[in-house]
């Protein structure tokens, strides 16, 4: 009997030590981060940035966010989702600042005063990628609309994001421009991010619309090549904007303002222009701060 008691005690002791271990782990969290020349911590340091997956998946934010945090003392919580969801978060006041690439949808938020301080940041372009054999002969087409029409006519597999992201919105607009409604076995919606969608297209030997940054970052793993590029309608334009602080009293408008200013600052813009040159031999984004939307890519 005494033996079992001891066993139970040991068990309890083990559990207690486990709890202590976990709690001590929690305490480590509070350690101040290294680096002496940090800015003073603002009154409300938590800043929620809702953005598209391409800014995270391309690695751009990993370069920019630490710079911003060091310069201002804010702590950025980056929530990388599709542009549709990012904009919805802004509309509901669940984020403080947005960085997205769906201008048509963004304009609605600007008109409704859901967002303020709407600024052009950068662009790159969308490209149409597909299997090297190019069964729909997209490479021979002159415009993006014709390219999409060719895929529609040949009923070649096309993998759509289908997730209301910026890329998805652009794709839907291009089908409309081509005057066709994609439907049928050949048109497949992945419902997932750009990286995953590229994988699916590669595995199925299908076409898909992608932003250039994500494609370049993943190219080596894919059996896909660029089949159409360069049309003006394929511009992929990124804007940064503050969520209207009047939405609720938890919105960190000062932090959001600081982030918008940081993104259009000339030093940040130069970092954007340089990003990816080393690794891919070409830039992934082009700086646009201060331009009007019509001037972009001109």
């Amino acid at each position: 009997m005494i033996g079992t008691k001891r066993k139970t005690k040991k068990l309890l002791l083990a559990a207690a030590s486990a709890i202590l271990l976990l709690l001590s782990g929690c305490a480590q969290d509070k350690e101040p981060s290294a680096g002496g020349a940090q800015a003073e911590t603002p009154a409300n340091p938590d800043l929620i940035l809702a953005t598209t997956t391409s800014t995270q998946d391309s690695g751009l934010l990993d370069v920019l966010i630490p710079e911003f945090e060091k310069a201002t003392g804010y702590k950025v919580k980056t929530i990388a989702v599709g542009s549709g969801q990012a904009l919805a978060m802004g509309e509901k006041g669940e984020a403080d600042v947005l960085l997205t690439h769906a201008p048509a949808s963004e304009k609605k938020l600007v008109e409704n005063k859901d967002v303020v301080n709407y600024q052009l940041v950068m662009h790159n372009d969308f490209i149409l990628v597909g299997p090297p054999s190019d069964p729909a002969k997209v490479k021979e087409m002159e415009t993006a609309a014709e390219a999409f029409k060719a895929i529609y006519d040949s009923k070649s597999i096309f993998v759509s994001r289908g997730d209301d992201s910026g890329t998805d919105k652009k794709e839907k607009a291009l089908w409309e421009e081509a005057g066709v409604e994609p439907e049928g076995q050949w048109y497949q919606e992945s419902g997932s991010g750009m990286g995953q969608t590229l994988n699916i297209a590669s595995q199925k030997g299908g076409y898909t619309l992608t932003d250039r940054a994500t494609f370049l970052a993943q190219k080596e793993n894919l059996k896909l090549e660029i089949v159409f590029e360069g049309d003006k309608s394929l511009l992929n334009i990124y804007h940064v904007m503050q969520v209207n602080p009047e939405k609720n009293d938890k919105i960190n408008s000062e932090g959001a303002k600081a982030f918008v200013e940081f993104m259009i600052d000339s030093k940040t813009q130069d970092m954007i222009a340089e990003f990816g040159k080393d690794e891919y031999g070409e830039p992934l984004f082009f700086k646009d701060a201060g331009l009007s939307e019509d001037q972009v890519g001109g």
Partner: protein
Amino acid sequence: MELVYSGLVKAFRMLITGDPEVYRITLLTLRVSGTATLISLLFGIPFGTVLAFTKFPGRRLLLSVVNTGMGLPPVVVGLWISIFLWRSGPLGFLGLLYTPAAIIIAQAVIASPIVAGLTAAALQQIDPKLRLQIKALGATGGQCLWLMLKEARFSLLAAVIAGFGAVVSEVGASMMVGGNVKGLTRVLTTATVMEVSKGNYDVAIALSVILVLLSYLTTLWLTLLQQKK
């Protein structure tokens, strides 16, 4: 297959060199899922005990609800916890969304029915004659309960293992309520999903190896506790 090889090499290297980012993610995973499991024990074991030993109207109905809860999809939990924790939600004033605490809450909700259900099953399996015997020997209610729990300790530890296994491996809820924020709420599963979508398969494979190792070592520790003579 080359990819798998380079992933394994990467995992090994990350573990040996103690890559600080991987180390932090691994530690956070252990801490979050460990805490969530402990909380689920605090709720699940008493609740399961009540379900096993008391008779009240609606008990079987409640038990069936708990048993259904054992298969509660993490994304469903994630969605509902998110709605509650939104700034505009009823618990928005706490400011918990996109913090490790939010993941702990979600994971505790996922693990609690598992622990409760398995506890109830474990206790119900004990021969009812034993209870009569203990009572006949003059044990108080508390002593009797304690002895019964001890009798079922193997199954109870199995419940702990199942609870921990469920939360350390889920990704849906962690992604939704945690947001996969770098250095704050990025755990092994959400990091793996992100690395796959970045196309960094070798890193993703490395993270998956680390996750399985972590899961195995924790379970090994619990199993040794369980099997101790």
